[in-house]
Structures are given as structure tokens and as C-alpha cells.
């Protein structure tokens, strides 16, 4: 007896083409016409991009440590953040500022973190979100744990996590899919596939047609969208989050985008990828695309654009000033290395704390 016991597919969605035109011949989500909302998100995308540029400039001038740019990811990131409710929980990797800004993380938070100051992870306005997770893909299981907590407590909250194309190869991500399946968790796992994991191209991670299909391992609904199309990203995220919130279990969304920048400021991508590829990516990038659409539709104009840029530039400058002011005039004392290790300082650490305080001013005299 040979019979098919299970069948699956991965569908791809794109509503706005690279030129910012709606693609005809398919049902459009209502939000494609919700210009107020789209403008709000567009503003967030621009804000994110202006911030990103400034952060790189700060790094280049020695005022910030290594920084991971989010250039080109704005639609993916802002869509994720916009689809979530405040009470939901986000478990980031390290470059999803666009998500985090929607959730209340401040520009200054981000600068503090990459500026080597732990206070950057003390999000006053996103109090239960996880901090950046440098060990790739581990955040997916934290999100799964959060989702289980919400499920056990009967709270209508959803946990969302992001992983890269590289990170999608890691057991943590794959075990999170399985956990989502096992407990039908309110969990949305987003693969932001930007084609590169530092110098390793997507094609080396595996030879499968999509990364979304990793969700099939757990029987999860798994779709792929154009990650430079804000409308497709947002539509997918809303669908996924709604399903998760309703108790239908977990969801995998792969967003196809491109890392236009170097991996981080410590990287030089020219070593390993042709410039033509980057140029091609510029032609598809998300900010111009959405702007075209909004302008075509009369929902945005050049005057607004200029005003927005000015506004963002000012805000970003202010954040940079604030950041520099904090690290210069209110640096964390050495003792804070100890004060957050435990709720109560154990005796051995208390001794070491005193020692560290004593030696405080030799820092740098290595």
C-alpha cells in the first residue's frame, strides 16, 4: 500500500512590485488601502534608516563600537513590530531596530548597547521584551518559552522571534519549531532571509527551495513573502499573529530581503560579494518602494518627505547627543559589573566588588 500521508506547500506573497506598483490579478489585503497606517509605517521605516546611517557614522568616528546595520531590512522589521501588540513579546537577534522602535525601544537604547553600555538593554518602554541575543538563534527558544508561559497562564499574548538565513540552520531554531508544534504555542518565527550570513551565501546554508519549509518539520503553516514589500510583510505577520493569538498554534514566515550593508562595521563585504548584487538589491529596496506607492496614491508628497527627513535627522542627532552625554558624564561605575549578577550580592562577589572599586581607575592602563 503506497499512499500520500501528508502534503505541504510553501506559498510566496508579494503585493507591491519593486517599482512600488500594486501587482494586479490577486486579492489585495485591505491594508493596502489603509494609507494612514501605511504612512505611519513608512515614517518608522525612514526613521530607522536615518538612525542606521547615523549609527554607522558614529562608529566610523570612533564614538560607537561595532554596529550591525539594518539597511534594507526596514520593511520586514517595521512590519513585524507593527503587527504586534504591546503585551506581546519580541525576542530579537541583533539588527531588528525597526521592530524594536515600534515596540518602544529608544534610539538611545540602541546606541548605548553598541556603545558598550549595558543600560541599553534596560528598555524602559518595552519592559518585557528580550534583549538582543548575540548567540544566534537562541532567542527563538526564549520566545518559545515566553509563548508557553502565556499559554499556561491563559494570556492572549504572542511571542515573536526573528532569525536570519544563517541562523535558520541552527538547532535552536529547529527545536523552537518543534516546540511550537508540540504545545501549539502562540509563537511566530520569522526568518529574515537577507541572503547572507556574514560571507556565507544563503545557498550554502542548505539546498532546499525555501527556508520557510523548515516549519513543515513541525507541521506549521509556513509562508514566504517579499521582505521588501511592507504590505506583504505586514499582511503575513498579521495573519500569523492572529492565528497564534487565537490558539491555532505557531507560524513560520520567511521574508526575502537583502543585507545591503556590510555585515557589521567590522566587516568588509566587498571581500566576498560582487558589487552588482548590491546594486540589484538597491533597485528592490523597501523604503523607495513604499514611498513610490504612497506618492502614486497621493498619500505622500515631497514636502512631507523633506519634513520627515528633517524631523528624523533632528531626533537622531538628539539621541546621539544623549548617548554621548550619558557615556561621558554618567558612565556606569565599575561596581555595576557586580550589582546585577544576583538579586542579592553573594559574599564572594562582595569582596571582588570592593577590589574592583579599588582598582577602578586602572581600567585602560593595561
Amino acid at each position, binding site marked *: 500500500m503506497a499512499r500520500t500521508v501528508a502534503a505541504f506547500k510553501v506559498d510566496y506573497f508579494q503585493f507591491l512590485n519593486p517599482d512600488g506598483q500594486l501587482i494586479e490579478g490577486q486579492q489585495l489585503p485591505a491594508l493596502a488601502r489603509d494609507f494612514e497606517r501605511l504612512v505611519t509605517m513608512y515614517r518608522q521605516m525612514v526613521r530607522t534608516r536615518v538612525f542606521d546611517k547615523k549609527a554607522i557614522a558614529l562608529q566610523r568616528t570612533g564614538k560607537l563600537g561595532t554596529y550591525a546595520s539594518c539597511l534594507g531590512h526596514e520593511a520586514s522589521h517595521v512590519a513585524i513590530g507593527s503587527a504586534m501588540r504591546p503585551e506581546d513579546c519580541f525576542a530579537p537577534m541583533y539588527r531588528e531596530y525597526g521592530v524594536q522602535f515600534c515596540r518602544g525601544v529608544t534610539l538611545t537604547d540602541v546606541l548605548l548597547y553598541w556603545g558598550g553600555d*549595558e543600560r541599553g538593554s*534596560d528598555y524602559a518602554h518595552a519592559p518585557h521584551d528580550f534583549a538582543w541575543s548575540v548567540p544566534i538563534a537562541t532567542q527563538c527558544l526564549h520566545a518559545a518559552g515566553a509563548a508557553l508561559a502565556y499559554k499556561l497562564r491563559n494570556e492572549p499574548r504572542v511571542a515573536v522571534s526573528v532569525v536570519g538565513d544563517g541562523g535558520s540552520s541552527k538547532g535552536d531554531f529547529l527545536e523552537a519549531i518543534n516546540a511550537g508544534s508540540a504545545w501549539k504555542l502562540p509563537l511566530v518565527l520569522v526568518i529574515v532571509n537577507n541572503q547572507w550570513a556574514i560571507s556565507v551565501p544563503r545557498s550554502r546554508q542548505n539546498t532546499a527551495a525555501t527556508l520557510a519549509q523548515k516549519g513543515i518539520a513541525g507541521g506549521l503553516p509556513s509562508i514566504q513573502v517579499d521582505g521588501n514589500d511592507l504590505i506583504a510583510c505586514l499582511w503575513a505577520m498579521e495573519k500569523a499573529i492572529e492565528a497564534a493569538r487565537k490558539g491555532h498554534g505557531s507560524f513560520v514566515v520567511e521574508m526575502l530581503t537583502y543585507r545591503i550593508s556590510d555585515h557589521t562595521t567590522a566587516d568588509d563585504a566587498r571581500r566576498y560579494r560582487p558589487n552588482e548584487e548590491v546594486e540589484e538589491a538597491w533597485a528592490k529596496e523597501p523604503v523607495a518602494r513604499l514611498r513610490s506607492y504612497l506618492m502614486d496614491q497621493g498619500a505622500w508628497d515631497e514636502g512631507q518627505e523633506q519634513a520627515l527627513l528633517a524631523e528624523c535627522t533632528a531626533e537622531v542627532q538628539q539621541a546621539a547627543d544623549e548617548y554621548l552625554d550619558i557615556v561621558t558624564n554618567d558612565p556606569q561605575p565599575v561596581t555595576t559589573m557586580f550589582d546585577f549578577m544576583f538579586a542579592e550580592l553573594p559574599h564572594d562577589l562582595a569582596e571582588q566588588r570592593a577590589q574592583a572599586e579599588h582598582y577602578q581607575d586602572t581600567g585602560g592602563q593595561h
Partner: protein
Amino acid sequence: MAAITLIEGVTLALARALEEDPGVIVLGEDVGVNGGVFRATAGLQQRFGEQRVLDTPLAEVMIAGMSVGMAAQGLKPVAEAQFCGFTMPMVDHLMCHAGRMRNRTRGRLSCPMVLRFPTGGGIHAPEHHSESPEALFAHMPGIRVVMPSSPGRAYGLLLAAIRDPDPVVFMEPKRIYRWQKEEVEDNGEELPLDVCFTLRDGSDITLVTWGAMIKETLQAADQLESEGVSVELIDVATLSPLDMETILESVSRTGRCVIIQEAPRHCGVAGEIAAGLADAGIWNLLAPVKRVCGYDTVMPLYRNELNYMPSVRRIVDAAHQVLEVS
């Protein structure tokens, strides 16, 4: 008040914690219907329900990672790893997240999870069921490492571990799970997570150990006492943070110390204690500090395991060496 075994002390503490705090969630492989392969969670799922006592898929990274996530979102996961040998995949989440959550977020989030598991050899178990990895966990900043050696300490220390607002690795010496019974009152009283317990007072030599090696060390102490040696015996109990005070104070009186650990010697907890003596304790030492340890080899399969683990004779011989010095 009933006389109970060490593992019953564990079960009692788990039940109490589940009872007193609705945020406590017991999870792990086979902890539900089956009550754990050693029966540590026996009856708990029946009593507290499937929402409180969860069988998980077979995935240790997942158990550790999700526990971190649950803990950061307000629950108190008490995760079981089935055996010491299977905790290695959990090292990543413990080291990189559990021990760092509070510090990383300047106290905004924390990680009040417990990872408990049976540890050590001597029960004729298969490969990977008999390791003593406490030093690995003790080397991780931000994590408490606790190992009880009696039913009462199992109860009191586990309760404290679960109530503690930070991550605790709670290692259960399986070889003595059912060794001794002791009357333990289920009164909810916890024991402190930062002190050694002095089990015997003495003046000639200090024997320092923890976990299941308490058994052989007590026997060695008996033998030494029968020779007229006055033995002070310390159960370290909490391996990180280490209560070096108590050990230093004892050795300041006895001048002699033997440290016994089942784990391999190299970079183990016994070395840390000896190093503490070589620094702050040096002027009180009348003899070399000896360590009696598992060898720096793989824990052998069961036919040779007792040859691997410190024996009473090895402990007594080390004590004799230390005592001979005058």
C-alpha cells in the same frame, strides 16, 4: 513527621513549591505520568495537573532555552535533565543566558529557573549516566550550584533554590538517593544557599566534600576516629558561591585538610577550595592540602566505576599522609 530518603526530600520540596507558588512549573522528559526515571516527580502531575507538570519533547537545548524564556516572563520553571551526562547541550543557554539575563538587562528581566538532575556514579548505570560535571556549572558566572547530601538538606536547599530569584543548578547525588532515611518536617523552611554545613566537629583534620562522597567520607571519618583522630567534616553543599569562610575557619583549627570529590581532579571544585587554602589559609596549614578525586579519565563503564570513584581507603590514606606530617 516521616523518615524519608533524599529523593523523597526532593519530591516533598517540589510538591511544596508547586503548592505555594502557582508560577512554579515542573518540566522535563518523563516527569509527568512516569514521575521521572528515578521517581523524583512521582505523583506530581496527578496532583497538580498537566499545566504544572509537563512532559517535554526530547530536546535538552529546548528545555534549557524555554526555561530561560519562561523564567524571564514571570514563571519559575524547575526543569529536570534526566541524567548528568545529558546536561551538556544545556550549557549554552545556562552560560549565555540564564546566568546573564539579570545583568544584561540591568535587572529588568531575571531568570529564576532551577535545573535539577541526578549526578554521579556508582549505580551501575550505562555510559553518560554517571558523570559529575559540577565544576563546569560552578565556573559559570551568575549561576548558583547546589548539591545536597541528606534528605533534610535536599528538602531545604531545593525549596530555597526554587524560591531564589536567580538561576540555580541543583545536582542530586543519585547514589545516595535512597541511602539514608531522616525525619524531615514538611514545614516549608528553606536552608541557606551560601553556606557549608559542618557535619562533625573535630580538631585534627578537616575533611571537605559534597554530594554522594559524603558517604565514603563519613566512613573514612569513622575509621579515622577509631584510630583516635578527631575529624571535622564539612559538606560544602553550595559549590557556587563557595563559603570559603567556614572551610578556612575549620582549617585554622585543624591545620590539615583533605578534599574529596567524585569528579575528575583537573580544574574541579576541590582545586578551587585548595587554592583558597593556599591563599588565605596558608599560615594555618600544617601539611599539604590533599585532594582525593575521580581520575582525569572518562568515567568507566560500570565494571570499573568503583575503581574510578574515591574509595574509603583512598580517603583514609590521604588523611594519614596529611596527619603524618608534623
